[in-house]
Each structure stands twice: as structure tokens, then as C-alpha cells.
């Protein structure tokens, strides 16, 4: 379940493709119990997710849910999943609060913003030694969570922090640009998705702000470059707990890259590997003979396998054990993987 046709669908379609691919591979082996994948287009909206999950549980009788993709909708339907005893694994919802609801049926593959935020901040402190940082976000659940985590981490490293927020539907950011220009920071971090990030970055550069611009996984998409324009986007730093394979990878990732390209007709993009891994965790459960929501959920507590994105194992609260952050940068108009945060070096 996730935003399959909405404004931020580019983050959700790759994990969907990954999940479809995993399920197809499994069904092609002609197992005793086949898995049917039903797709729910919530457009990333909590209200749509709420009615869709009711339909999924009562009419479609699903036994497990891959998703929801975003944090807001995850928060909205977590209670319903608990009641319906439906285990869920989200490839991409990163709000830290989601793990603190006492939900026992909820899991995720990615590291949360509490890990991602400090990851971005610490990387920028190391790479740019900033004295002053400006932390921006729109008003969405994910955006605010990430921005707060980044701001706190900067403060812990003795970097002065100023902040501003805007409505996700705003199109004119002139007041925000004015604030940033007046403060003249060394680095700017934006918590939010690529549609807003592209507009913001364009207006910041047009407004004469030249500081390094960084953002999280929600903005990690080529459409950030399209939205901001190639010139404005150049050099932007993006961080993600996700691992996006490029054509030069080797080993299991290489196999995944080629199979994905065959099945989806495009190169793997954000969360494709995580979507595949989320589906794989359920497939492993079914292979072990678990076909009800409760039994699958029991199995997820003990599952441990070498996922495509990373080794996958869930903690008791549903968080993944492994929480690596990867750094990317826009170089010559293309998003390029620089490597894990501990090793990555910025270009230019």
C-alpha cells in the first residue's frame, strides 16, 4: 500500500516493483501455497489508507501488508492492523515515533529518521565543518520528524541552528528564502519529499543562497533535479538508509539489478531493494508453512536473512537491526552514490 499515482509516487513505485518481482519469483516456483499481491493506491493520504485497509482486511482478507509507504498513513492505520492481526512490513516509512506505539504487528526495513537525521548532520559536520546550519521542512509527519532529528544533532555538535517550516501545498517560498538569506548559513538541510525540495532548492538558488543543500531519503530522486533545474540542483547532498544499486555493482545486488530491469523495464530506484526484502520476509514466512496473520507475525520475530539491501532481522519493536546510512550527491545533473556515510567523500 502506498502512493502509486500521487505527487510522490516515484518513491513508492520502485518498492512496489521490487515486491511484485519477489512475489512473481516465488509463484514461478509453483509452491503449494501461492501468494496473491493486491495493490492499494492510498496516494499517500492517511484518510484514503484508512478506508483501503478496512477493505483489505474485511473484503480481500489479506494476511500480511507490505507498506504503507509513508509515515503519516502508517500512523493512521497501525491500530487497525493490530486489531485485524495483520503483520505489516514498510519498505520506506521512517518516522521514529512509529516504533513507540507498542504495536506488535508492525515492522520496517529502513532505518528511522532518528538514525537518518544524525547520519546526515554528522556527515555534514565532518565534510563541511559548518558554524551555522539552517534546518527547513514542510508540515508533513515525515518532514518534521527528520528536520527535528537533524536540528538536534547539529546542536549536539555545537553548530548554531535556525529553523523554518512551510505548508506542503505552498508554492511561493519567498519568506523562507528571505530568512535563509538573512541568516547566511554554511549548510541547509531540508526534511521533506522531492516535489517540495525541488521547488525550494530552485527558489533558494534564485534568491542568491549558495550554501550546501542537503536532504534525506524523501528527496532522493532524479525528479529533484528536474524540479530544481540542473544548475540549481548541482552539488546537492542526499542521504538515505536505502541502498540503490547502480549498473556497476557486483554479487547479489548485480543479480537483483538485472532481474529488476527485466521485470520492471527500468533501473532499480529508491527502496526497490527494500520492497523486495519486505516481500521476501513474508515469502519466507509462507515457505515455513505460516498462512495466517498471527503465525506470519510470530515468524517475523525470528526471521533473519541476507536481504538484497542489507542483512535483515527485526527487533522486538519492529525496527531493523541494521541501520546503515548511505550518502548520494547530484553530480552533472545525476544522482550519484558516494557510499556509506562513514566512508563517503563529497565532490566539488
Amino acid at each position, binding site marked *: 500500500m502506498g502512493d502509486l499515482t500521487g505527487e510522490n509516487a516515484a518513491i513508492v513505485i520502485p518498492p512496489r516493483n521490487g515486491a511484485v518481482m519477489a512475489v512473481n519469483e516465488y509463484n514461478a516456483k509453483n509452491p503449494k501455497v501461492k501468494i496473491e499481491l493486491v495493490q492499494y493506491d492510498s496516494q499517500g493520504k492517511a484518510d484514503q489508507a484508512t478506508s483501503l485497509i478496512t477493505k483489505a482486511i474485511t473484503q480481500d482478507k489479506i494476511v500480511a501488508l507490505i507498506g504503507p509507504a509513508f509515515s503519516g498513513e502508517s500512523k493512521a492505520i497501525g491500530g487497525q492492523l493490530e486489531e485485524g492481526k495483520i503483520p505489516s512490513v514498510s519498505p520506506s516509512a521512517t518516522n521514529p515515533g512509529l516504533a513507540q506505539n507498542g504495536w506488535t504487528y508492525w515492522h520496517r526495513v529502513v532505518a528511522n529518521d532518528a538514525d537518518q537525521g544524525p547520519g546526515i548532520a554528522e556527515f555534514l559536520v565532518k565534510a563541511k565543518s559548518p558554524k551555522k546550519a539552517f534546518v527547513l521542512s514542510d508540515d508533513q509527519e515525515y518532514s518534521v520528524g527528520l528536520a527535528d532529528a537533524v536540528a538536534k544533532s547539529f546542536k549536539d555538535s555545537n553548530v548554531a541552528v535556525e529553523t523554518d517550516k512551510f505548508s506542503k501545498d505552498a*508554492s511561493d517560498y*519567498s519568506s523562507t528564502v*528571505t530568512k535563509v538569506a*538573512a541568516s547566511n548559513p554554511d549548510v541547509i538541510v531540508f526534511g521533506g519529499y522531492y516535489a517540495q525540495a525541488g521547488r525550494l532548492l530552485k527558489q533558494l538558488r534564485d534568491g542568491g543562497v549558495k550554501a550546501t543543500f542537503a536532504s534525506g531519503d524523501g528527496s532522493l530522486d532524479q525528479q529533484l533535479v528536474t524540479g530544481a*533545474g540542473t544548475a540549481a540542483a548541482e552539488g546537492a547532498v542526499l542521504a538515505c538508509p536505502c541502498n540503490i544499486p547502480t549498473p556497476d555493482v557486483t554479487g547479489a545486488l548485480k543479480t537483483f539489478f538485472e532481474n529488476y530491469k527485466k521485470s520492471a523495464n527500468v533501473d532499480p530506484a529508491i527502496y526497490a531493494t527494500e520492497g523486495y526484502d519486505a516481500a521476501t520476509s513474508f515469502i519466507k514466512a509462507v515457505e515455513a508453512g505460516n498462512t495466517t496473520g498471527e503465525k506470519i507475525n510470530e515468524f517475523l520475530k525470528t526471521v533473519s536473512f541476507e536481504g538484497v539491501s542489507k542483512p535483515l532481522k527485526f527487533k522486538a519493536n519492529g525496527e531493523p537491526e541494521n541501520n546503515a546510512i548511505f550518502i548520494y550527491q547530484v553530480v552533472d545533473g545525476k544522482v550519484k552514490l558516494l557510499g556509506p556515510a562513514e566512508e563517503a567523500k563529497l565532490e566539488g
Partner: protein
Amino acid sequence: MLDDFLNQFLPSTVGGLVFGSIYALIALGYTMVYGVLRLINFAHSEIFMIGTFTSLVVITAIAPASPLTGFALFGVMLLIIVASAAISGGAAMLLEVVAYRPLRRKGATRLTALISAIGASLFLQELFALVIIPWLTGNAGRNQQSAPRIVDRDTVFTIGNAAVRTDHIIVVVAAVIMMIALDRLVNKTKIGRGIRATAQDPEAAVLMGVSIDNIVRVTFLLGGAMAGVAGALYLMEFENTVFNVGFVLGIKAFTAAVLGGIGNLRGALLGGIVLGLIENWGAIFLGSEWKDVIAFTVLVIVLMFRPTGILGESLQKARA
């Protein structure tokens, strides 16, 4: 706090004037239709959206390799403004024929027309998201669509610490020219007299030989054309658009129309500019996330003391 204000006041003013001009152009359409039909045309925000996409298509077709200057810039700006005004104006007339005229003929209440307006608004958004945008651009219909740059962001002059750029000047100047032209048209021409007469007393206007259907059609055409111009300027300034771009802008522009005095052309202009400025000034103190709250608080306060808006009763009535 005071430091923030001094540092940010002038740049915020420039930003507020630019966006306020776009509010004002959209507000004209709401206010004209309200003046003539006493109808809040909620689908007007989609007429604006159609204007942004018309310009997007034209600019993408021209696809300048680098931003334009001088004569070429003037020509392309004129082209997108005329194209967007024509398509948006046409779409507004069509909207009137399809969504409102049948109801008016049957003597439906204003409430029915209002529901029809909301329906038309949603219909147009989805039509663009699911059919027209994929067909025009080849991209997913709900994605943000970007246009190439046609105006360089050169600073023309500075006032204090505020840089006034070429694109700022184009937006404000074009908006002011359009508004003066519309004001002349409504106040000085025969068709304008028809619009004012219909606004004042539709029945008497009919008795005097005014064709209401014609007047309503012209009103939608003019309001739609203004929204088209707003769409062209918006696309030039922000270089992107999306199927629901009009939603929030439409609400704000309607607010601007009420703030200035609904039914009142000059009120729409004043309301738009005031709204743009107040939003940006308020954001200096409270943060940009409070923009909407500030805008609507000001609206409520103004309406408490002047229930008919800043400029009050419609000009049509006062000066007919």
C-alpha cells in the same frame, strides 16, 4: 526579533508584492463572477491550472536553450500570456455553458450552482491528472511538471537589502497592465456597462435590452483570461506546475477577493496585494508555517469591522 524584522522586511515585501499580484489576478475572476451571478465559482482555480499548463506546453515547445533577453523574451512572454489567456478564457466559457447555464435555465438555487462548481473543480483536476497531463507531457499525471527557464534571475536594482529581479518586475508590471485594462473595459465600454447593469439588477438589465447570457459569457471569458494570465506569470516565475496547483492558490485568491470586497474589481487588486504582503510580513515573526493562519486571522478581523471588505460594496453598484 527586531533585527530579524529589519533584515527581512524589504526582501519579504518584494516577495509579497510578486505573489500578491498573482493572487490579485486570480481574485478578479472570483469577484467578477460573484458580482454578476452571485456565484462562488470554485472551478476558477482549475481555470488557473489550465493557464499554467498552456504556458508549460508553449514554453516546452519553444524550448529555449538558454534564458531569453530583450525582444525574444518580450515575444515569448506575450505569446504565453496570450495563449494562456485564450485557452483559460475559452475553458471558463465552456465551464459556464456545461456546469452553470443549464442550472440557471431551470431556475436552480444558488446552492445548487455552488455544488456544481465544486463538482466541476474536482472533475477538472482529475481529468487533467488522469488524461490530459499524461497526454500532453508523457509523464505521470500527478507528478509535478517542470518547464525550462525563459527569464534570467538577474538583479535589476536593489532597495536596501532587497534584490528586485527581472522576473519580479515582469510579474508585477504584467499584472498591473492587465488589471488597468480590465478596469477600463468594465468602466468605460458598452459591454462593461452591460456587466455593471447585470450586477446591479439583472431583471432591469434584461428589460433594458441587455442579453444576460451574453454578459455572463463575457464575464466568464474575462475572468478566465485573467486567471490564464496569472497562470502564465506563475509558470514563468516558479517554472513548475501540478494538477492541483490551483487548489490552495484558489482559496487564497478567493480570500483576497473577500478581503478587498467581493464583487469589487479594485477590491480584488487591493485584497491580493494586501494578502501577499501580510503573509510574508507575518512569516518574519512567526515562521513561514504560520502564513495561512496569519492570512485568515487578518481576514476575520477585517470582516468583523468591515463586513463587506476593505473597499466595501461592489463598485458596480456604487458607480453604475
